[in-house]
């Protein structure tokens, strides 16, 4: 069905002419498909009215926050309306005594952190695109960072949600309290659902107090084996690090090149984020340094203050800081058993050698997450061959107990490969859920797992 101009006229009426755009929309293209309209609703009622109209008229709606992760997903089946939530950006409630907050989905994480920081509290999420990402986008894409090792993932921090469904129903689940088993835990269903079930318009989070002290221990090792071994030793010990990050030499160089930290050459780096009481941060630095030396660490360094924060900014924002000006960026995220991180690094290096590719890798090693980057400078890469290589990587991930998702890939490559890994025997139920929530397939059709 080709939507006609009268329908788009109604769209404009619903959000107001000044919030509806029909020209200069190339920056809002999704995998090269330029939307017919971009709208900026100002209230949940407007979102509801839009969804009602879109569902009735069969308009494809692509929800968007700041747009930092619009590259995630397969090529959509169409793009009629890009629905931008940036005008729904209020912090609605903040209860410091209760360590909870309620925000509109378009509120940037940074704005919330600033507000919470005034009361020495924070939302312990440190996803990529830290300075731009909106909370709705972070939840919809299940976007996490290094600190998930200690603080948990998005799913562990969302306690309430408001979602507008196709057809316009405004629904709530969860609530303001930190413990809640009243009804199904719909928060979990929507977290990471990439806007395929509804439009997230509000979120409740539980918060944490800011730590007394926060420092980084850097240790360098001749190979990934020793670094990975130390990660396992630490993560199964009584020590309580916040994050355990392994970087290969090339990733280290690109990420931290302009920081005043002496270049360790061809070593693998282990960066440990430590937070808490000053006594236990110091003790952990001493103990891990000692264990590091026993594992063959060649050098160590402690970062604190500004440098500590700048360092972790670079690490968590790797999709921005790492690629630089590369012509084509392919980035995969493997989620593995933590014990298999070493094997995966080594297998990837072998695969890189075989195909004359030069992967850059960093890993939230304590959590078993590995990011692999290919930065290509050729004008016309051989995408069919690349997709074969990626399939091989996927087998490696499967052998390490996990899966691999392509988070960033040129649209041309997406034509040759499914960016998502297999959902196994649960795909059937996932498709049925999609059918129930979005029967006319108006939300992000085709972008999610298994063609959802």
């Amino acid at each position, binding site marked *: 069905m080709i939507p006609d101009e009268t329908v788009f006229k109604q769209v404009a009426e619903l959000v107001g002419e000044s919030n509806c755009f029909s020209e200069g929309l190339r920056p809002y293209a999704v995998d090269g498909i330029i939307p017919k309209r971009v709208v900026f609703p100002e209230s949940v009622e407007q979102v509801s009215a839009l969804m009602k109209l879109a569902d009735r008229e069969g308009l494809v709606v692509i929800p968007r926050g700041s747009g930092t992760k619009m590259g995630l997903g397969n090529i959509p089946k169409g793009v009629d309306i890009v629905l931008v939530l940036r005008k729904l950006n209020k912090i609605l409630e903040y209860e410091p005594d209760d360590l909870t907050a309620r925000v509109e989905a378009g509120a940037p994480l940074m704005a919330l952190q600033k507000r919470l920081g005034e009361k020495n509290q924070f939302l312990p999420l440190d996803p990529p695109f830290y300075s731009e990402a909106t909370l709705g986008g972070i939840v919809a894409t299940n976007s996490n960072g290094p600190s998930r090792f200690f603080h948990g993932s998005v799913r562990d921090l969302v306690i309430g949600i408001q979602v507008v469904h196709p057809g316009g129903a405004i*629904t709530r689940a969860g609530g*303001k309290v930190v413990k809640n088993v009243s009804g199904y835990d719909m928060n979990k269903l929507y977290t990471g659902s990439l806007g395929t079930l509804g439009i997230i318009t509000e979120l409740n989070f539980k918060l944490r*107090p800011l730590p007394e002290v926060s420092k980084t221990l850097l240790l360098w090792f001749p190979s990934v084996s020793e670094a990975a071994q130390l990660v396992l030793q630490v993560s199964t010990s009584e020590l309580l690090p916040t994050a355990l990050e392994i970087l290969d030499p090339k990733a280290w160089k690109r990420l931290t090149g302009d920081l005043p930290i002496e270049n360790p050459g061809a070593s693998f780096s282990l960066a440990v984020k430590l937070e808490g009481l000053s006594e236990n941060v110091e003790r952990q630095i001493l103990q891990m340094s000692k264990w590091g030396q026993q594992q063959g660490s060649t050098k160590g360094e402690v970062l604190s203050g500004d440098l500590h924060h700048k360092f972790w900014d670079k690490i968590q924002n790797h999709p921005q800081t790492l690629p630089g000006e590369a012509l084509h960026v392919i980035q995969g995220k493997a989620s593995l058993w933590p014990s298999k991180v070493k094997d995966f690094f080594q297998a990837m290096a072998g695969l890189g050698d075989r195909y004359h590719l030069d992967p850059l890798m960093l890993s939230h090693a304590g959590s078993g997450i590995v990011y692999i980057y290919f930065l290509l400078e050729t004008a016309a890469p051989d995408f069919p061959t690349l997709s074969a290589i990626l399939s091989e990587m996927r087998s490696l991930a499967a052998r390490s107990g996990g899966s691999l998702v392509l988070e960033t890939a040129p649209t041309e490559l997406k034509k040759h490969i499914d960016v998502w890994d297999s959902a196994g025997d649960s795909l059937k139920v996932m498709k049925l859920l999609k059918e129930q929530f979005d029967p006319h397939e108006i939300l992000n059709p085709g972008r999610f797992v298994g063609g959802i």
Partner: protein
Amino acid sequence: MDKKKLVVELAEVVGVGSVFQDPEDLAAYQYDAYLSKALPDLVVFPTTTEQVSEVIKIAHREKIPFVARGAGTGISGGAIPVRGGLVIALARMNKILEVDFENRKARVQPGVINLDLSNFMKDKGFHYVPDPASQQACTIGGNVAENAGGPHCLAYGVTTNHVLGLTVVLPNGEILHTGGKALDYPGYDLTGLLVGSEGTLGVVTEIVVRIERRPEAVKTLLASFSSMLDAAAAVSAIIASGTIPAALEMMDKPTVEAVEAYAHAGYPVEAAAVLLIELEGLKDGMDRLTKKIVEICQGCKALEVKVAQNEQERLQLWKGRKCAAGAIGRICNKYYLHDCVVPRNKLVAVLSGIYQIAEKYGVQVANVFHAGDGNLHPLVPLDMADPNQVERALQAGDEILKCCVEAGGTLSGEHGIGLEKNELMPLIFREEDLNAMRKVKTVFNPEDLCNPGKIFPTPGRCVEVTQRPAKLA
């Protein structure tokens, strides 16, 4: 289908000795720890995922309702077979299938008892963190169904935060695998959706859980106060100070009196409220942190603050908390245990409200609860010999729930909705909200064979809370 034929067919799947049909055997499966009961037609004891699948395929074919059951310790009626049919008792699926220390995960069958899992790993210094009060009896499968909590969930999260993967038999008998030992899997988070679904979406037959190192250092404090107000202020002050204790439990005067008469835990009976505070972490800095908490309590006019000096003293302080419900059970022949949650900055107002409600209905109320996460457990003693008192107690209970909801709270923090609170769901959810949940149910359990009659309000039923369908045991 003829019951005899059904028994034969089920016995072919699980074995003759694993199908109960005698009335005296069935009687034990008609209730859990809630006040209501309903007889099943049969009880089966499968031992494998495949057996569960075969049993459910038969039930699905014959359109017989079925309910999975763990230890039957739930207090919202989740395991009660309200429409009869099969009880699928998972007690014999009690194997710990795998403990993977390197990846800090364990894989268990649903009938494994919560505490047994921790004890199994004790000599390696590991444990499974969620610790419901009934952990000596309740099963991990039951914990998954109800998304159980426990005192130490304040710092570490509830069951759902510790479950990473499931094997589940759908209500048509199909076997489904979700999640696993890695953190992220492609697609919707079905694991998260299934945890806390109260056995209405399928029967879980395998569970992957996180396991953690036991903390290096533990400090346990007991602070007593001359008013609930002071104790609640101390809770707020501790949370606001930037410390999240591992556990932060409160008991009021009636609880303390009952506990002391029963367990002699050394609680000061003259106190109007007692806080049990546990700090966990590394030993470094622990003394300073303990001192800080002691000072906060003193600043909130604590009458006394005791710090356990050794493990024996620590266990002694916990003894009172752990046996609180039992101690109250000793002074009345039955009680109604509630499970509501309020924002932590509303604790004082809600507690005052609860005492006023109790007075209004002429019933007693004892409060013992997870103050740190706002999860209240008002206990209303029931005099079963006096139907009028019981009716007033139930009404008081409903009003207490309303009071919590009005303060921004919710109906259940860790015990579930079951058939206890399903008619109250409209207090916190609108029809649109419930419809979204119904869509989920339609996908998994379209014929409503799997644990029917739970969570959702009965269609067309008036919301008036006094119409609670409780059949009293």
